[in-house]
């Protein structure tokens, strides 16, 4: 087995026992990148030079017994997190040549452990999309089928992990952007509780929904990453002032008697048969492991997508106002200020970003605010209440992560509504602010991965990690790797 195919915890043992060196690990990772990246196109920026520079420091830390969980582990970072001194693009032309003068809290925690930063990964521009087709650089390919999308918006991070171009990655999830691509690429993706992980330095798309989370090859690695990135941050007022548990402590606990809720609104007629079969089998597996399946209802599910596209775009229209050509990034010359604004934003933003800015601007406009934004907030509360009341009867809720396997590049690119529907099972989780994890649970007839979503209560990451780990350890889906 090549070192780049290993997990964080697997490598950790080898590194700490000095059976391998950081350099050997890094060589294998970049060797893999050299052989597959021109087909996968997971990265926007590859930081090979900086990675090799850090190799020595990481090795020194290991040799002197000061190694942390991620010391010497090659990690990829979604390119919407600010990394001091390293180009940060959000896959947008409007941030042309933008090199942040400061570090995001999460990447600071990762780099603080002397992980090896492999590179910054591709995404839909400003994380707006479900396929990475909205990247202004290139479309990332699904390692299981290069004609298919990897999902999005964290498609680059997910494809890099699935293709063995890094050991693990971080992504951001606003409506499913970690879990949906993880499902489509057959790996693990966790969206923590809103407020569990600092957003400081994460370029905002929708502030009340965005959350950073781990993208890993298995559940144990996701727990390990959570141990590093979670925690209150005084620089983020929305990060919760609660102590972080040891997420890895949940691993290996059995799930006898665990009550799993199956929301009736998520298993609807006409859903993809292969997905439904894989998920039904997974629920059966969980029951075999001692869990008790209960039907629950999340009655406002049908309003989730509409609610999301009002609230997320409203916040986005304001969050993205700062890209105006005045301070950093792209500036298109013009005869006066208004033209400079207009030319810069016309050229710098892609079609989907413009669409969402316009939607959000409209929803907040005087005369429409009550009918859209305010109503959206009210429905959001109802959706949150749905989860609260369901969680009175169950410990976790289990659903498909995505309604289908990976779709073909171009298939939905011209139909935004179809594209939006690919997040139908993940969006409510962000609106409710609860955590959700996607674990591999099967394959479609075309050989494309299917993911199982396990949703927890607020700050209930340990329980979903426990359930996901128990499921994963009794199946072999997570061990399959795409042949590239």
């Amino acid at each position, binding site marked *: 087995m090549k070192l780049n195919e290993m997990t964080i915890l697997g490598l950790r043992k080898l590194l700490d026992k000095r059976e391998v060196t950081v350099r050997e690990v890094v060589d294998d990772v970049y060797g893999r990148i050299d052989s597959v990246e021109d087909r996968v196109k997971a990265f926007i920026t590859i930081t090979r030079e900086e990675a090799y520079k850090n190799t020595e420091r990481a090795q020194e830390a290991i040799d002197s017994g000061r190694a942390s969980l991620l010391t010497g582990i090659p990690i990829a970072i979604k390119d*919407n*997190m*600010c990394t001091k001194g390293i180009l*940060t693009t*959000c896959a947008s032309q409007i*941030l042309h040549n*933008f090199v*942040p*003068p*400061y570090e*995001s809290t999460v990447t600071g925690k990762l780099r603080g452990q002397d992980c090896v930063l492999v590179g910054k990964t591709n995404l839909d521009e400003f994380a707006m999309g479900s396929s990475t087709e909205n990247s202004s650089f290139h479309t990332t390919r699904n390692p299981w089928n290069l004609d298919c999308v990897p999902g999005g918006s964290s498609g680059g991070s997910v494809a890099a992990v699935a293709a063995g171009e890094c050991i693990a990655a971080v992504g951001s999830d606003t409506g499913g952007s970690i879990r949906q691509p993880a499902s489509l690429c057959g790996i693990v993706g966790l969206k923590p509780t809103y407020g569990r992980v600092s*957003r*400081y*330095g*994460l*370029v*905002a798309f*929708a*502030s*009340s929904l965005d959350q950073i989370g781990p993208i890993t090859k298995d559940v144990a690695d996701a727990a390990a990453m959570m141990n590093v990135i979670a925690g209150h941050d*005084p*620089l*983020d*007022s*929305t990060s919760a002032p609660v102590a972080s548990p040891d997420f890895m402590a949940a691993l290996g606990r059995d799930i006898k008697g665990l009550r799993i809720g199956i929301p009736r609104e998520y298993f609807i007629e006409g859903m993809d048969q292969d997905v439904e079969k894989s998920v039904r089998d997974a629920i059966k597996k969980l029951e075999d492991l001692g869990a008790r399946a209960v039907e629950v209802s999340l009655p406002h599910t049908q309003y989730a997508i509409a609610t999301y596209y009002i609230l997320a775009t*409203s*916040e986005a*229209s*304001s969050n993205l*106002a*700062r*890209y*105006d050509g*005045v*301070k*950093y990034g792209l500036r298109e010359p013009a005869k006066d*200020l208004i033209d400079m*604004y207009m030319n810069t934003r016309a050229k710098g933003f892609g079609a989907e970003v413009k669409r969402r800015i316009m939607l959000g*601007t409209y929803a*907040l*406009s*005087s005369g429409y*605010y009550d009918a859209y*934004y305010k109503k959206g907030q009210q429905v959001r509360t109802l959706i949150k209440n749905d989860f609260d009341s369901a969680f009175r009867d169950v410990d976790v809720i289990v659903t498909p992560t995505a309604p289908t396997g990976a779709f073909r590049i171009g298939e939905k690119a011209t139909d935004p509504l179809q594209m939006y529907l690919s997040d139908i099972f993940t969006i409510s989780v962000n609106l409710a602010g609860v955590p959700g994890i996607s674990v591999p649970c099967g394959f479609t007839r075309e050989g494309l991965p299917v993911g199982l979503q396990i949703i927890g209560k607020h700050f209930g990451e340990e329980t979903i990690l426990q359930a996901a780990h128990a499921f994963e350890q009794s199946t072999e889906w997570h061990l399959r790797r795409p042949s590239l």
Partner: protein
Amino acid sequence: MKNGVDASAIMKKYEVVIGLEVHAQLLTDTKIFCRCSTKFGAEPNTQTCQVCIGMPGVLPVMNRKAIEYAIRTGLAMNCSIAPYSRFARKNYFYPDLPKNYQISQYELPLCEHGLVEIIIDNEVKRIGITRIHMEEDAGKNIHEGKGDHSFVDLNRTGVPLMEIVSEPDLRSPREAAEYMKKLRGILRYLGVCDGNMEQGSLRCDANISVRPFGQKEFGTRTELKNINSFKFVEKALEYEIKRQISVIEDGGKIIQETRLWDSAAGVTLSMRSKEEAHDYRYFPEPDLAPVVVGQDWIAEIKKSLPELPDEKRNRFMTQYGLPDHDAELLTVERAVADWFELAVQAGSQPKAVANWMMGDLMRMLNEDNKSIEDVTLKPDQMAGMLKMIDEGTISGKIAKTVFEAMYRTGKNAEDIVKEQGLVQISDTSEIEKAVDDILAKSPGEIERFRAGDEKLIGFFVGQVMKATKGKANPKILNDLLIKKLRV
């Protein structure tokens, strides 16, 4: 207005309605959402960081001191303090606003329903405070001397501001000016704002309308911006009122619009109409938690409040027996009030101190455009001078000269009197000699005096004073003159 009509008679037909929106920069050391310094006057863009520059990915963190200052202000202005308030984004594009939205408060402000008292024609008038909310200041665009480019200085970006919104309770420019003075006084008493309009730490926008007396509904209002000096509060409002009345009198209609005060030309100019007004698309700021203010905290702040202008005024009236006019004037500024009390504590008569302060001292401060903190003259020095008057060492007239010298040099009255030889002559024989000299030279005036022109006493006093360089004890002089002239 039409020619030949009595302008002031027409003006009197209309009732003026004014409400003020006052922006006050808070005197916190650091900005409202980051740790940058708020100090005024630094090199452009040296007091900035990723947060106040609006870099991608940054988040605001509330400065608790700023909230405390706003609560202090709210309590001092008799507001109720909201136990739960929140911030909102006000969206508009402008280069001095790096995020292109301003973090402000909209639906749930921190303070509401307050009132401030002003004194107009010896009557107390209560002005309602609609709300006090918090927000971040914007930077400054610099256009002058930069060719065809404009530059942006973001040092001021993120300095904490309070916006104090009054009810439309003000009925004249004078009331507005009095209200502004009172507001500034309170802010300075509290130590939350330095109240400097010229430097922009206190700014005033006015909503103005006029209506014929007796009309219930308000007239169409205009919003007046850029009143950037205390001098201009009354002037700008007076101009705008005259303009509105003359539009109405000429059969026109007031257009709801925003107008700018041009202090150089002394006029207000249209800036934008209601149709061109921004749609700010306010919505709750998702990056900040709601501000929750507990009763304990409010009680703690309340306890720490200093004596405020109104309380002080009332105390000055009872404790020092000052008339309300004097008490009001001496308590508008905390530094002035403190100065007064120190002089009284040094042993002087309160009314004498009040007279000197309201007369000579304030006149000189005005002339020099200084405030009382700027002068070296100390309250106990004034007390020393008043003592010399009481003891008859100098006359009240000489004291004026002495006081001005004290003000200019910071020396004690005694030293000035000694150096300039200004000690009052109370030696009767010396004064008598001077009186005799003058009488000898003025036989005609003596004759007219004795014939009944008693006003001529002033002439004799003046002549003797001139001869003694003003040093003759006025009482002795008077007695001597009357004795000799009435012979």
